[in-house]
């Protein structure tokens, strides 16, 4: 029984065996054939795409005793020594643990000695992005003009962390993520040799789960082999990989598209009653929705899907409006099923949220540029009255606000009350400290109603309604909020800006807005209540 893990046992020993990187292997083989091997290479790409394997094969190829101008023979002493990792002249440096400048200096000293047995000394520096800046600079000089018998192969997953000077001195090769087809081919070869019988669909599933990394795929295959033995079915693969593979995920997507909440809820409950993991189920739903989204936006061909997968979803895609798909994908994508594995409530809520509000949403003007969250959180009732023309203020709103601060309600400047909408030039100039705050408090709602063109209906205006001007310090108006949520929303940059504009245009000078949160239970409110003041609930409703 082999004790080596698959990815080491089946590591490619020839350049041609490296799967899915033809653009790299072809160039290298040509270089070998023409004896134009460069002195410094940089291999970059995601994990499990064959960087280290290619580096080792290249090291063998240049030093191979029998050939030397192409693929390594893997049978001569040199090739075998390199494969077994005992060759003196192929030095693998793990840059992640030798990050310092001293490590590179010692490397530089040794570089100048001629190789012991091989033609070339090959330095394979893995994870080269981990080198410190000074270490990189120390390496740079050697990299630029290495002695003729030395080849450097740098490998990394993160190219952007490497100094541009190092980048420019190397011949750079980008390794791509493997396609599912490539992974399946390699896996089926491995399973054949290992005597594993596995359903082709299961292999596809592994390839999908590996997201382009061969090492991940090989590990998964081995895991399955140790767990299930030499015969692996699709269902076993699904269980291990956490795909429910359930048709009902597609059914639910269908229900969402058809806005059929009743069947949707029953689908969810069926799934739950069957004892399926809801988190897995949710993942499947999101994945189907994603495919739907891609199909809808006309980029379905970029997905690696089978034909029967697509046909059904394509049909759905033509039916569903994009907004709805987006809404659903957001709802389900953000779902946190958390620890409570058996509650279907989050799923059901997402379903309802993802389907029903669509009708309400349609009424809302799309041109509204403000970001969604504040708009959503603004209580719809509070926003309603603003829809009316700002020139005829709603008496209902006006009165309670005036009543709002009965303690100070001495109506200091009643003369200004009937002024119409020409708010910008209004003679509120003398509003200075002291009485200004009371004045502002009494005219708060008027100010919002008279907001400059286009601002009256913004979320910021709605938020202003739920605020109370607390004090004026020079150019700053302090707004007090009863709920932390309102305060946070108001503090969002664009809301704050609009609010400042509204206030400034009313006061006729530029003002800043600062937000504070004051819980209702503060002593002033209590005192006011004790003296017979009443709550008015206009803002919170």
């Amino acid at each position: 029984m082999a004790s080596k893990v698959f990815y080491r046992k089946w590591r490619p020993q020839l350049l041609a065996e490296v799967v899915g990187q033809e653009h790299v292997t072809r160039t290298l083989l040509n270089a070998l054939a023409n004896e134009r091997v460069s002195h410094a290479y940089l291999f970059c790409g995601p994990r499990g795409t064959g960087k280290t394997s290619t580096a080792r094969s290249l090291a063998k190829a240049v030093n191979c005793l029998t050939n030397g101008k192409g693929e390594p023979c893997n049978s001569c002493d040199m090739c075998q020594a390199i494969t077994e990792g005992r060759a003196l002249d192929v030095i693998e440096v793990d840059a992640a643990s030798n990050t310092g400048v001293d490590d590179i200096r010692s490397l530089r000293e040794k570089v100048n000695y001629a190789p012991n047995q091989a033609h070339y000394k090959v330095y394979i520096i893995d994870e080269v992005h981990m080198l410190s800046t000074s270490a990189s600079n120390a390496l740079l000089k050697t990299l630029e003009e290495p002695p003729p018998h030395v080849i450097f192969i740098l490998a990394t997953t993160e190219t952007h962390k490497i100094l541009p000077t190092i980048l420019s001195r190397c011949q750079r090769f980008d390794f791509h993520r493997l396609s599912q087809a490539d992974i399946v081919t390699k896996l089926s070869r491995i399973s054949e040799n290992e005597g594993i019988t596995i359903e082709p669909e299961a292999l596809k599933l592994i390839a999908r789960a590996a997201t382009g990394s061969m090492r991940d795929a090989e590990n998964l295959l081995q895991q399955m082999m140790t767990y299930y033995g030499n015969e692996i079915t699709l269902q076993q693969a699904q269980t291990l990989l956490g795909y429910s593979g359930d048709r009902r995920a597609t059914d639910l997507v269908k229900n969402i598209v058809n806005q059929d909440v009743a069947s949707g809820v029953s689908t969810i409950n069926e799934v739950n009653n069957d004892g399926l993991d809801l988190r897995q189920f949710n993942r499947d739903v999101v994945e189907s929705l994603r495919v739907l989204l891609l199909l809808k936006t006309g980029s379905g061909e970029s997905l690696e899907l089978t034909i029967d997968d697509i046909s059904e979803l394509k049909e759905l895609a033509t039916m569903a409006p994009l907004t709805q798909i987006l809404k659903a994908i957001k709802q389900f994508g953000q779902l946190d099923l958390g620890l409570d594995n058996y509650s279907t409530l989050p799923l059901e809520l997402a379903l309802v949220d993802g389907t029903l509000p669509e009708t309400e949403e349609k009424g809302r003007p799309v041109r509204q540029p403000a970001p969604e969250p504040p708009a959503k959180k603004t209580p719809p009732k509070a926003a309603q009255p603003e829809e009316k023309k700002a020139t005829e203020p709603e008496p209902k709103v006006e009165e309670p606000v005036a009543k709002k601060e009965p303690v100070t309600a001495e109506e200091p400047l009643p003369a200004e009350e009937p002024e119409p909408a020409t708010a910008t030039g209004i003679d509120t100039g003398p509003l200075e400290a002291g009485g200004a705050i009371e004045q502002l408090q009494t005219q708060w709602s008027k100010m919002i109603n008279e907001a400059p063109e286009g601002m009256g209906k913004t979320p910021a205006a709605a938020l202003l309604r739920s605020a109370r001007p607390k004090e004026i310090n020079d150019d700053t108006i302090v707004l007090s909020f009863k709920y932390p949520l309102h305060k946070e929303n108001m503090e969002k940059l664009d809301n704050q800006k609009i609010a400042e504009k509204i206030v400034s245009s009313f006061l006729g000078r530029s003002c800043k807005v600062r937000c504070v949160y004051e819980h209702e239970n503060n002593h002033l409110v209590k005192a006011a209540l004790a003296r017979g003041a009443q709550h008015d609930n206009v803002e919170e409703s």
Partner: protein
Amino acid sequence: MLHVLIGEDDFSVRQALEEIKKTIGDPTALMSNTTVFDGRQVTLEQLRSACETVPFLSEKRLVIVEGLLERFESGNRTGRKKPSRKTGQPEEYKAIADGIKQLPEFTELVLIGGGVKAGNPLLRELAATGKVRTFPRLKQAQLSQWITQRVKANCGSISPQAVNLLIRFVGNDLWIMAGEVDKLTLFVGGRRIEEEDIRAVVSYAQEANIFAMIDAVLEFRVGAAQSLYQQLLRQGVTPAHLMVMLSRQVRIIFQIKEMRGRKKTRGEIQSKLGLTSDFVLRKAWDQADRYSPARLREVYHKLLETDISIKTGKLDGEIALNILIAELGQRGTVSA
């Protein structure tokens, strides 16, 4: 004999140095007769003793000094701020120049400098004594000529369109260009280099793809943006990287728009933004013409939202970008 090699085109400077080495003689004999100094630290005494040592088992000695000329660069104010005794004193260059003028026959002295101006006092002093060669950064036309020559030297051929594409992707860093050209000729193995070869092999083509995606996003071409996105994912680009690139591009477009409004020249903008790659600048320049500030702002806000939802773990990165692309495109279909 004195050689002065200066210019920003570092690659050609090194090549010239190699040529000098070849004319001197056997490389193994030269190895023990070569001294390399860092011009920022070398003293006149060190230089003199290195130059006047009689070569050992060889006819010539090679002394290379890097960055000596920069010490006397008048515009080099930033270097002067650090009070170091080694920075050039006005009188010092005279002494060095005199020392160099008495160079013995058997010594080849090579002075290498980067951005050295013609007014450099040491350079003026030495201009008559030695051979001065300047290597400025190559312009477009010279660059395409250089590429064709290099391909030819590698026994290959390249189509003119491919040359242009290569220049667009790589820019005028000859180090990178040399690597890419070598790689390309080996990749095609004898046949002519065409545009698709460049797209397949050149590392910087990926970056171009990212820009194509950003373009598609900004231009409401959702389908194209999504398939480019899938393609980039397969090439190993992470969603996080794409997010960064997207916001960077939008930021650059914004900045260019703004600076152009303040009547800055193209060169000023380029240096201000620190864009070394001409490709990035040109792309953003065009985009700045095409997109309204309102559109850019919208994109910016959406980017922020997506970033937050990824970083707070609300959404998986891959799917979040899918949503982002679809949403940005979808608003377009309504408002465009």
